[in-house]
């Protein structure tokens, strides 16, 4: 079974700072990875996903993530954060056995104006 870990539980940044949130996964077959975001009071939304091909994946709102197979990582990045990026971010992997997502514990991002 696949597991996903996020080591940054709470990150505080100032506006315009660069962002990188860590995500590591355990290999369990075909690697399909996702980043979801949950803005305050809203439901989980898909930011981006990786299945194959170019390891650098671009998502919505200027986010991108890089799949590095040798490091078992899929870190989320954004060159310049905005106050509106304040949210909780979840990394998830597709568990091919269970045909469902396995989520990390999430990273709460707080962007200060």
């Amino acid at each position: 079974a696949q597991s996903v870990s996020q080591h940054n539980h709470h990150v505080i940044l100032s506006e315009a700072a660069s962002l990188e949130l860590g995500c590591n996964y355990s290999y369990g077959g075909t690697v399909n990875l996702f980043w979801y975001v949950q803005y305050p009071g809203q439901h989980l939304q898909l930011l981006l996903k990786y299945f194959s091909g170019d390891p650098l994946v671009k998502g919505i709102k200027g986010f991108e993530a890089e799949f590095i197979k040798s490091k078992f990582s899929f870190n989320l990045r954004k060159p310049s954060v905005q106050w509106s990026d304040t949210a909780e971010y979840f990394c998830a992997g597709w568990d091919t056995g269970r045909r469902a997502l396995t989520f990390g514990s999430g990273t709460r991002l707080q962007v200060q104006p």
Partner: protein
Amino acid sequence: EAGVAQSPRYKIIEKRQSVAFWCNPISGHATLYWYQQILGQGPKLLIQFQNNGVVDDSQLPKDRFSAERLKGVDSTLKIQPAKLEDSAVYLCASSFSGAQGQPQHFGDGTRLSIL
């Protein structure tokens, strides 16, 4: 398109009472998921339906939790009797067919507090 609808948004009950949550997935979505999200943790899959059949309920505490999707559309999740550790947000999600790679669309969740 209309999103995944869940009700109620909030529920407070005492331990040993029963509670039920309702979910209406996006129209045409065959796969429906129930997740439990405990504070400080990521969502954990409880049960997955494909139409009205259960695909995976290996993480569902079957001594107290039950779920059904009788007509292959909306679904209910029940807890009876509730324990303190059941305090969590219960999320419903749906996808078109459950195939690998299809995005899951989430509802707003039901926040359950057990006193």
